């Protein structure tokens, strides 16, 4: 009862409006030119743009048009809704012009000032992004079912380590078995940790898709505030996630919004978590069904892990270190033709633009994967959904197996706890 009246009071006063505005100023700069000043038109971005291989899309030209004062024309034409936000251009830009950031802000502008509504660009008729928006309502609290939690794992409502599930239980609506990612991730964490893991029923979406895909910053800020409150109430210090998008959002975007977010919480991807436990000698890798012939597998780098993180973050090297180690237990890791920072996109990000062009990109990616091995491991639930969707359409990919990092490792991890267990028994 109190919660609802409190919010009503706040909404009446002017404070909350300023509150949103102050957050907005941290993630939105209306002057698009400021971002692009350094561009000297080398044209690299148009060359490396993944979308430009399947349709006409030239970032350098768009940048030049904005700099020369034709910003309105770019915005009116709506061409920026096409961008798949893979960040390949920033990766190769000699001047570090952040084109994806420009597109993100331009989307906000197009929506709010030009009143554009990109309904036809949103995949799945916008059901999942609508869900995120509904979750941002302050009076609504999700009540997730926890039927995917494996029996042997103990979960709790407050504690130190939290598993941030993300939207996986909602994706089950159209994608069967997608919550096995959550199950195997929780299994992995439970094996390593002694204490019960925090999994919250009232967890909200991180807001990634609204932030990057649709330029809806206000609901994003609401979601971020809601999540922050939830984390604080549960008394968490470490957040582990298995989703590349949640990782990037919690790690980078939330710290931009809230100054002390990264001091209060340590955000870890499951790859980092496994890597650290391995280096601390908490776990080892064992294969119960080792065959004489090594199993060939490859890794698809999600853009959110390879290109959307600060350069000091070497998560893609950590994952390779683990994979190369697996050679001892009968798994052979092969690189795809394009890998690490240069990896190809799965074709869709933030539920935008699922069409024949993005399908062509996906086809390219899966063909490369097929050449490298029968198992494809990746670490982003969306990449899995998109690649599996294509796999089901083409017979030639029928023999391939697309797995999440956690699903791949769940049966290969063995916990070393010899001494400690004996002490407990005594």
């Amino acid at each position, binding site marked *: 009862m109190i919660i609802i009246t409190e919010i009503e009071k706040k909404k009446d006063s002017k404070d909350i409006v300023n509150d949103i505005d102050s957050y907005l100023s941290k993630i939105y700069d209306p002057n698009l030119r400021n971002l692009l000043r350094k561009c000297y038109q080398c044209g690299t971005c148009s060359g490396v743009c993944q979308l430009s291989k399947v349709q006409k899309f030239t970032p350098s030209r768009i940048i030049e048009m904005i700099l020369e004062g034709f910003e309105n024309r770019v915005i009116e034409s709506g061409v920026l809704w096409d961008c798949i936000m893979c960040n390949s251009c920033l990766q190769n830009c000699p001047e570090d012009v952040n084109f994806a950031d420009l597109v993100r802000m331009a989307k906000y502008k197009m929506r709010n000032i030009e009143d554009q509504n990109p309904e036809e660009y949103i995949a799945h008729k916008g059901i999942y992004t609508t869900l995120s928006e509904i979750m941002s309502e302050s009076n609504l609290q999700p*009540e997730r079912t926890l039927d995917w939690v494996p029996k042997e794992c103990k979960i709790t409502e407050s504690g130190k380590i939290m598993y941030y599930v993300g939207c996986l239980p909602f994706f089950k*609506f159209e994608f069967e078995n997608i919550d096995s990612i959550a199950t195997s991730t929780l299994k992995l964490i439970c094996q390593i940790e002694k204490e019960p893991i925090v999994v919250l029923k009232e967890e909200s979406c991180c807001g990634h898709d609204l932030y990057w895909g649709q330029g809806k910053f206000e609901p994003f800020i609401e979601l971020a505030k809601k999540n922050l409150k939830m984390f604080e109430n549960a008394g968490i210090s470490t957040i582990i996630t298995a989703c590349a998008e949640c990782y990037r959002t919690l790690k980078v975007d939330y710290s931009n919004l809230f100054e002390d977010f990264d001091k209060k919480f340590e955000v870890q991807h499951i790859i980092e978590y496994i890597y650290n436990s391995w280096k601390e000698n908490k776990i080892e890798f064992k294969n119960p069904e080792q065959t004489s012939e090594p199993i060939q597998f490859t890794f698809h780098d999600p853009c959110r892990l390879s290109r959307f993180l600060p350069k000091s973050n070497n998560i893609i090297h950590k994952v390779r270190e683990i994979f190369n180690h697996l050679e001892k237990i009968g798994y052979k890791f092969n690189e795809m033709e394009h890998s690490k920072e240069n990896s190809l996109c799965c074709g869709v990000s933030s539920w935008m633009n699922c069409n024949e062009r993005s399908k062509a990109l996906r086809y390219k990616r899966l063909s490369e994967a097929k050449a490298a091995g029968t198992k494809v491991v990746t670490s982003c639930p969306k990449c899995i959904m998109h690649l599996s969707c294509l796999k089901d359409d083409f017979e030639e990919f029928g023999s391939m197996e697309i797995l999440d990092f956690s699903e791949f490792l769940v049966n290969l991890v063995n916990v070393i706890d010899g001494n400690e267990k004996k002490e407990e028994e005594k």
Partner: protein
Amino acid sequence: MTEAKKEGKNEGFEPNIVAFCCNWCSYAGADLAGVSRFQYPPNIRVIRVMCSGRVDPSFIMKALKNGADGVIVTGCHIGDCHYISGNEYTKERFERLHSIIIKQLGVNPKRVRLEWVSASEGKRFAEVITEFTNDIKKLGPFKR
């Protein structure tokens, strides 16, 4: 605490309800209710669709997001569908929508409803709408 658990504060609240009616049965049923002068609350906004199978779950979620307090989808009785099996798809989709999305989102499941009304059931249409409107009035507004 989920949304709308307090009652008694909703006096004088007039809900906005979106009703998707299929062209062949329920829309004709609504027509019959009008011609026969059966009274029902004026809170519904009817949207005619060719078949209840046309109603994508995202339409329902978008209606709720954009200010509807309740959404009702009506179609032909099972076996009577003009397109043979359209309403069977609707039924299946609705069960999934309820069990996976509506429930987990913390929205009261009473706000989204599926009913079968045939073209001859003008009286039933009026009854269904009256009942649904009263339910939503009890629940109160979806957004506060």
